[in-house]
C-alpha cells in the first residue's frame, strides 16, 4: 500500500553524519517542531566509526518550504560540526524499491 503522503512526496529523509555528541537529535528535532514538521521514524547507528542518524519526516503541514528547511539543517550542521542533509524520500524509493 502506498499511502497518501508517500504519493504526494511530502516525506523527506534527513541524514546526519559525523562525530557523535550530545544534543544531535535535540538540535534537529527543535528545528522540526518549531516548524510543525512531524517525525515518522528515527534510527541511528555507528557505521565504520561514523555516527549516522536517519530521520524520516513528513512535511505535509510544515510552516516552511523544503529549501528553507534544508538551509536551517545545514546551518545547524555547521554549528555542530556535522553533515546534515535533507532529501526527498522519492530518491531512496526509486533507487532501492522495485
Amino acid at each position, binding site marked *: 500500500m502506498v499511502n497518501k503522503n508517500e504519493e504526494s512526496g511530502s516525506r523527506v*529523509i534527513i*541524514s546526519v*553524519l559525523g562525530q557523535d555528541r550530545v544534543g544531535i537529535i535535540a538540535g534537529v528535532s527543535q528545528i522540526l517542531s518549531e516548524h510543525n514538521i512531524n517525525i515518522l*521514524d528515527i*534510527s*541511528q*547507528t555507528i*557505521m565504520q566509526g561514523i555516527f*549516522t542518524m*536517519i530521520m*524520516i519526516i513528513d512535511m505535509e503541514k510544515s510552516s516552511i518550504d*523544503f*529549501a528553507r528547511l*534544508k538551509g536551517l539543517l545545514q546551518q545547524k550542521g555547521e554549528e555542530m560540526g556535522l553533515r546534515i*542533509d*535533507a*532529501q*526527498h524520500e*522519492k*530518491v*531512496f*524509493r*526509486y*533507487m*532501492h524499491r522495485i
Partner: protein
Amino acid sequence: MFTIQEIIETIKMVQEENLDIRTITMGISLLECAHENNKIACTKIYDKITRLASRLVPVGEELEREFGIPIVNKRISVTPVSLIAGASSLEDYLPYALTMERAAEEVGVNFIGGFSALVHKGYTEGDRRLINSIPQALAETERVCASVNVATTKTGINMDAVFHMGRVIKETAELTADRDGLGCAKLVVFANVPEDNPFMAGAFHGVGEPECVINTGVSGPGVVKKAVERVGDGDFGLLAETIKKTAFKITRMGELVGREAARRLNVPFGIVDISLAPTPAVGDSVAEILEAMGLERCGSHGTTAALALLNDAVKKGGAMASSYVGGLSGAFIPVSEDEGMIRAASEGALSLEKLEAMTSVCSVGLDMIAVPGDTPVETIAAIIADEAAIGVVNQKTTAVRIIPAFGKTVGDYVEFGGLLGRAPVMAVNKFSAEDFIKRGGRIPAPVNSLGN
C-alpha cells in the same frame, strides 16, 4: 521503510563516488520557425527557445536541492537547423548559430545542440549551406554544438559527406587553433544518429519528436567502479550481475529526475539515456572500471571484451530501471574527458586502432581524440569512414569527434578545461587513404542477412 544501509549507500554514491545526473536536456521543435526571411526566422527561433526553456535551469536547480543529487548540466536540443534555415535563401547560416547562442545565454544553459544536418543519403541545399557554415559558427559561438549524420544502416555511407566533414573538421580546428581547436569538441560526425540523444555535442531534436520534450542522461562510472572493486576476484557472472544491479540504481535516478523535471515543466518525458558518461574528475572514469576488472591498463588486450561485458550489463540494468530508454545508451569512451583514458593514451597503452575496436562494442565512437595538426584531410575523412562502417554494419550508432591540434604533434596535449578535459595528441597511421576517399559517391547499404 528503508534501512540505514540503503540510505547511506545512496548518500555515498553522490558524496564519494561522483553519482550525478549529467544532463537534463530539453528538446524543442523549431519546424514552425522556418521562414523565407531569415531575420523573421531567427526572431521566431529566439522567442520559442526562450519561452519554452525559461524555467529549465530553475527547475533543474530545484530538483538538485530536493533530491540532493547534482544535475551537472541543463541543456537544449533543437530541430536540425538545416531543415529550418533551408527555407531562406541565405548562403551563410551564421546568424542562426548566433541566435541559438543568444537564446542559450538568455535561459542560462551551457550548450545548445542542433546546428545539424542529416545527409546520410544526400544533401539538400540547406544541408550544404549549413555544413559549410559550421567552422565559422563554432568559432564565433561558445554554446552552439553541431552534428552531421553521414551514414545509416539502411542507406549506407555518404562518402561525399564524409570527405566534406574531413575538410570541415580541419577548417574548424584552424579557426579555433588559438583555443587548441575547441570548435572541434563541439562537432560530431555520426552514423545511425539517434534523434533523442540528450548528450552534447551530438544532441538534436529529431523530426519524429514532439513539440517539446525532456530527456535525461545519467553519469556514474565512479559508482560502477566501486561496485566492481567490491566484487574482488569473483567470476564474470558475479561481475556482470553486480554491474547490472548498480546500473539499475543509477538509472533510477535519471528516471526520477527526468519524470519530475517533465512534470514541473509541463512537457512530456522522453527518455533516459543510460550511457555511462565519465568526467575528468578522479575516480569518475570508464577506463578505471575496465582496469578494476583486472586489466593493467585500459587499451591492453582484453579491453574490448571487458568493455563489451560492461556495456551489456549497463544496458540490462538500465533497461529495467527506466520505462523509456533511448539516446546513445552505452558506455562512453571519450579520451579527453576520462582521466583513465588520458593516462592510458599518454603511457602508450591505448592506441587509436584499439579505440576503434572498442567502439564496435559500445557507444559511441572515437570521441574527443586529439591528432597531430598536420593530419591530412583525407586521413581524417578515412577515420570517419572506418567508424561509420562499424556503425552501419553493426546496426549501431557510431560517431567521430576528433580534434586536429594545430602546431602540435604526438606527445603534446590539448587543454579545454572543465568537462571537456584535456587530451594527449595521438598518433595516426602515416599511410595515405587519399585515392580511396576521393572516389566520391556512396558506399551501398549492407545486406542484413548472411550475418557474419
